């Protein structure tokens, strides 16, 4: 009987203890797995969100896009950027606050994203808007918009219907003119938060909604490079030193230095705690198990079992507990991550499409490596106990006891 078979029999001998150990590792392993998914989840998810639209450089007036500062002379700037050799296309995004009137009930407050249709694409094709059409088609005309699911549901409007809205492009306090726009599609806006409502349309549609008071400012210019995004960002910075151009990777890097750091720190602390807890749990279980079998172990040593063999038996026992618990921890961890993700996404200001827990092969590899380390570290003390067991004294004590 090899060490694994022997360890398995030892575990089965005490089913309650073995089950307790395995369930303990499964629970702790699930938390550990979740912490690993959390440690990079936001970064991976944000990077995915930024890359999803195909825009690899973001130009804004502030340090990060969405800071509230606006780029002055945005249309001209976008035109100048689109003429840079490394740039394939540039698209201006202007946001305004709107109120959508309803036949009954309070108006819906929403954000109106107006985008230009300018392009440096030789084919002159229309640029892809920074949203995804779910039903209907994309807005093209001066009086067309797309709405999100929330507005569609609350105002019971589907593609083909009309909305009356009042948009404010210059200041919140301005008198809002009412405009009727045709809804041509329902779309998903990647950076929309849980409590937010958004409509999208062309820059012309936004101008119409704002009664022509759009001005020349914009919140963001989205750029698609022909090749290296870093080269494009540098070219934009050279062209207009007063504005900020950042590649998606740089944006994620800046987010990492700010808000995302907290999640990483929390996950690091909790990872350490969970691994320590798993080590203590297995160490205690194995030590108790070994101490109860000292007589048997001494007898096996007397019968010729080598020191390395009895050490292997203990290590195998640890590996079986941690291995089985670790396997169970994966589905348990994914289930837990899905629940926690839902809770965390309920926080204000979090884009609906952003995820806190994202599965990565790297996280799985680290999870496995940590569990292997746990199995070894947890077995160190009980392995020391059996390897230094005084055979004769133990046999003597067992008889006296």
């Amino acid at each position: 009987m090899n060490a694994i078979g022997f360890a398995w029999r030892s575990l089965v001998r005490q089913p309650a203890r073995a089950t307790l150990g395995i369930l303990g590792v499964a629970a702790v392993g699930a938390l550990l797995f979740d912490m690993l998914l959390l440690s990079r989840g936001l970064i991976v998810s944000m990077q995915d969100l930024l890359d999803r639209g195909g825009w690899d450089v973001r130009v804004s007036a502030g340090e990060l896009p969405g800071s509230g500062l606006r780029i002055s002379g945005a249309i001209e700037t976008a035109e100048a950027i689109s003429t840079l050799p490394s740039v394939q296309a540039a698209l201006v995004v202007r946001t305004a606050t709107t109120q959508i009137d309803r036949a009954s009930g309070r108006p819906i407050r929403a954000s109106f994203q107006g985008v230009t249709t300018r392009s440096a694409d030789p084919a002159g094709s229309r640029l892809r808007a920074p949203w995804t059409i779910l039903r209907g088609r994309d807005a093209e005309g001066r009086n067309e918009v797309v709405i999100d699911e929330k507005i569609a549901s609350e105002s019971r409007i589907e593609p083909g219907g009309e909305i009356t809205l009042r948009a404010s492009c210059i200041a919140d306090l301005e008198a809002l003119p009412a405009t009727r726009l045709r809804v041509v599609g329902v779309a998903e806006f990647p950076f929309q938060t849980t409590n937010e409502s958004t409509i999208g349309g062309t820059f012309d549609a936004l101008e119409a909604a704002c009664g022509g008071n759009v001005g020349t400012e914009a919140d963001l210019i989205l750029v698609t490079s022909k090749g290296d995004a870093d080269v494009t960002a540098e070219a934009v910075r050279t062209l207009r030193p007063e504005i900020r151009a950042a590649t998606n990777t740089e944006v994620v890097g800046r987010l990492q230095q700010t808000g995302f750091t907290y999640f990483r720190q929390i996950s690091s602390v909790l990872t350490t705690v969970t691994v320590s807890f798993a080590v203590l749990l297995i160490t205690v279980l194995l030590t108790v198990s070994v101490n109860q079998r000292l007589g048997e172990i001494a007898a096996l040593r007397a019968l010729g079992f080598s020191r390395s063999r009895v050490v292997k038996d203990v290590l195998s026992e640890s590996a079986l507990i941690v291995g089985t618990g670790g396997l169970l921890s994966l589905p348990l961890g994914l289930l837990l991550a899905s629940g926690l993700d839902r809770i965390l996404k309920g926080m204000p200001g979090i884009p609906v499409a952003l995820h806190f827990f994202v599965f990565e092969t790297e996280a799985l590899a680290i999870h496995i490596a940590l569990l292997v380390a746990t199995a070894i570290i947890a077995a160190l003390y009980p392995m020391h106990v059996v390897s230094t067991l005084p055979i004769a004294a133990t046999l003597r004590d067992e008889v006296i006891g």
Partner: protein
Amino acid sequence: MSANGLIIDAKNVSRVFSMPAGPVTAVRDVTLQISNGDHIAVRGPSGCGKSTLLHMLGCVEPQTSGTLLFDGQDVSRLSDARRSLLRLKQIGFVFQRFFLLPMLTAQENVELPLSEAGVPRQARQKRAIELLEYVGLAARADHRPSQLSGGEMQRVAIARALANGPRLLLADEPTGELDEATGAQIAALLDRVNQAGTALVIVTHDPALADRAARVLMMRDGQIESERTR
């Protein structure tokens, strides 16, 4: 194997334990030779050093002084791994409390030393069945220790001790946990083992068991006080 059939040659071996109240000499200047086929009983009052001597002969207790040669090899010079191998191949142990592994069947318990010695699966299963037949327990091969009586457990333990065909079988109070009738059965089994050529050293308080031995060593205060031969 030495030409003269000498298995153990112990010269002036002593074992001193360091205790908080001062050193305690458990075995003092014992000189003893054990050859192939010997049948030796060690008797004496509790605490006289019988078990310690047995453990020294079984290479699980190092001597503090003197020399102990097993098959001509100085045991004190052997590494732990070499001593383990020596015990595995050359020495069998039978304990008062049997120490069978409760999660294994009788056959699996007997197979353990064979497995450790690297005997292939089929060969070790065949050998285990043979040994269980030898001790009269072939029908109980699939039983766990908890399903066996004390005498049956000791018979399985003897079969386990014989698994690798040791030259020397050491038994520490093998009938200590058994009633008189069962003890007699175990004694008869041990006689058979010895008659088959295995040297036997039994530590016992039981005069009836000791009287079956060819040599009876009487110990007192860690020393062999007298030796009676039959």
